[in-house]
């Protein structure tokens, strides 16, 4: 179901991207190109600026300086909903779902967003193509089909994290920004979610912030290491493992 690929060499490009909070530069003069396709993982200690970087890419925050490009297009001033329509979908580090709606309604709303602005919104939902079939498909993918009648707020933490991934998948996006999707999951849930990410990755670009170093090493096409708002290194898992600067600064005790 993936979208036809436009001719661009990169998914995202940033030039001198900076975001300050009261003088403190959470993201500091970052200029990188993130190639299309693959699982592009971002690692770095807490406070390195990973989430802020995602916020700049997805439009939650305006940059203090610099530009963001998406497939040759300058999207620096684009509203988040327009970025979503371009095919950029994100999850949040702190679970961000519709708590008081059912699991089913959560996913259906995400699928329905594909029809916004196209279909007549006052038509019954049954006229909206495969809305329900697609919703059920995603519920099965994330393993929440059997509990889809309950309220989202009553799901376990791990299930809420999976629902959040479901909301991201529903748009069939070209680019997924997943901010610590595995945080707080049980080993079984982690395993299922990693499999899900691998299964959906062909034909898409996945940006992933993750701390579990085993997962990172096994799943990543490339790893980007951030520290104090800057990019310390970019490379394949093997290159990163062998990188001395990374060893010193971050991986030290971990790898």
């Amino acid at each position, binding site marked *: 179901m993936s979208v036809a690929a436009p001719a661009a060499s990169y998914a995202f490009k940033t030039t001198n991207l900076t975001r300050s909070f009261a003088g403190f530069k959470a993201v500091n003069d970052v200029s990188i190109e993130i190639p299309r396709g693959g699982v592009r993982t971002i690692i770095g200690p807490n406070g390195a600026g990973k989430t802020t970087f995602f916020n700049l890419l997805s439009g939650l925050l305006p940059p203090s300086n610099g530009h963001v490009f998406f497939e040759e297009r300058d999207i620096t001033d684009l509203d988040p909903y327009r970025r979503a329509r371009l095919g950029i979908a994100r999850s949040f580090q702190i679970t961000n779902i519709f708590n008081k709606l059912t699991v089913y309604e959560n996913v259906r709303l995400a699928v329905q967003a594909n029809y916004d602005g196209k279909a007549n919104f006052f038509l019954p*939902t049954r006229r909206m193509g495969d809305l329900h079939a697609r919703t059920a498909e995603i519920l099965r993918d994330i393993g929440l089909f059997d509990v889809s009648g309950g309220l989202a707020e009553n799901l376990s933490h791990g299930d809420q994290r999976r629902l959040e991934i479901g909301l991201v998948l529903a748009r069939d996006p070209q680019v997924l920004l997943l901010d610590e999707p595995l945080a707080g999951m049980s080993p079984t849930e982690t395993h299922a979610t990693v499999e899900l990410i691998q299964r959906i990755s062909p034909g898409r670009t996945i940006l992933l912030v993750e701390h579990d170093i085993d997962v990172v090493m096994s799943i990543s096409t490339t790893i980007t290491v951030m520290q104090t708002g800057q990019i310390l290194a970019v490379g394949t898992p093997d290159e990163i493992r062998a990188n001395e600067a990374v060893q010193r600064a971050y991986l030290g005790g971990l790898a």
Partner: protein
Amino acid sequence: MKSRRAAPWITLVAIAAGLILLPLFMPGGSLDLNPLSGNRFPFHAGFIDLATTVLVFALFALGFNMLFGHSGELSFGHAMFFSIGAYAPALYTKGFKVDIAGLHLHHDATNNGFIALVLALGFVLLWAFLLARLIVPRSSGIYYSMITMAFAQVIYFITFRWSELTGGEDGIQGIARPVLPGLPANWLANSTHFYIFTAVVAFVAIAANYWIVRSPFGSVLHALRENRQRARFLGYDVNRYRVNAFVLSALFPAVGGWLWTYLQQAINPDAGGIDYSGRVVMMSLLGGIGTFVGPMIGAFVYWDIQNSVAQQWKYWPAALGAVFVVFVLAAPAGIAGAFVAFQRYGFANSIRRLFSREARLETDLAEELPAREGGP
């Protein structure tokens, strides 16, 4: 798997039945619930004009609830739409002569009620749209409530001060009821006939509202109410939805205002005052903002208490206040919300759900999956 949610036609049939039976529940009617009221005869309608009043305010509350109940934004100035919806037909029917900025505006009396309705809806649509475009991108939460209230005051002062056009504090009296095609000229002068007319209009408006809140548009409003940021990142143009919700929600009070003018055959600035804006909030909360019929039930309860207690006790607003406080504390989901919970979870579980997350969890998972049309 069957959905537990009522099929649309069941709800609409129930509403139609409610509209037919409502007069029997009015003070003096054979189904009057108030033990204090006197004479009852079999199948005797109660105060029929009071039943009409309930419907007028039910439409007002219905519109208000589309905004507050469904999209989660509290307008504290919805009476302005009720007022504009009332004054436009009043002026159109009664005629006017004013001089403004060197222009001499003049319009003769007429009695075409449907052109009056189009004017009421047209003016409200225009004003609500301009206002929403101004307010929505700039405010939310408490500021939104305050700004809507401020603009409602502007409308109030225009109706109050511009005596030449509006009759000022005294308003406009002697407004003729419209003539319906194919019926005798004074057919609507009869209270029962006017109730029938109002009930038919109300049914159409309620059905339209029901259609809207159950549509994909309506479910986006629920998404905005729950988590605006999430909706935005799913790709919804949040402000466009907020503007549309505001405009649509203003049209129902306009229809209510139109009927109000003809019911009373008079109108004064009170229709757009803070008191009216507040009343609709109270009716909606009392009846239950989380449900479709709740605010309409709230309108009924409000007028029933007002009417029965007001005759016995001059401090009747205190009684109303007490009922309101009890509901806000004991049944935050309102009258209709409590019934929905009883029906879905049973009485004991509903009470437990109010207090414990565990109880909510247990009872939630017992629920059935929603119906999936076209699913595997």
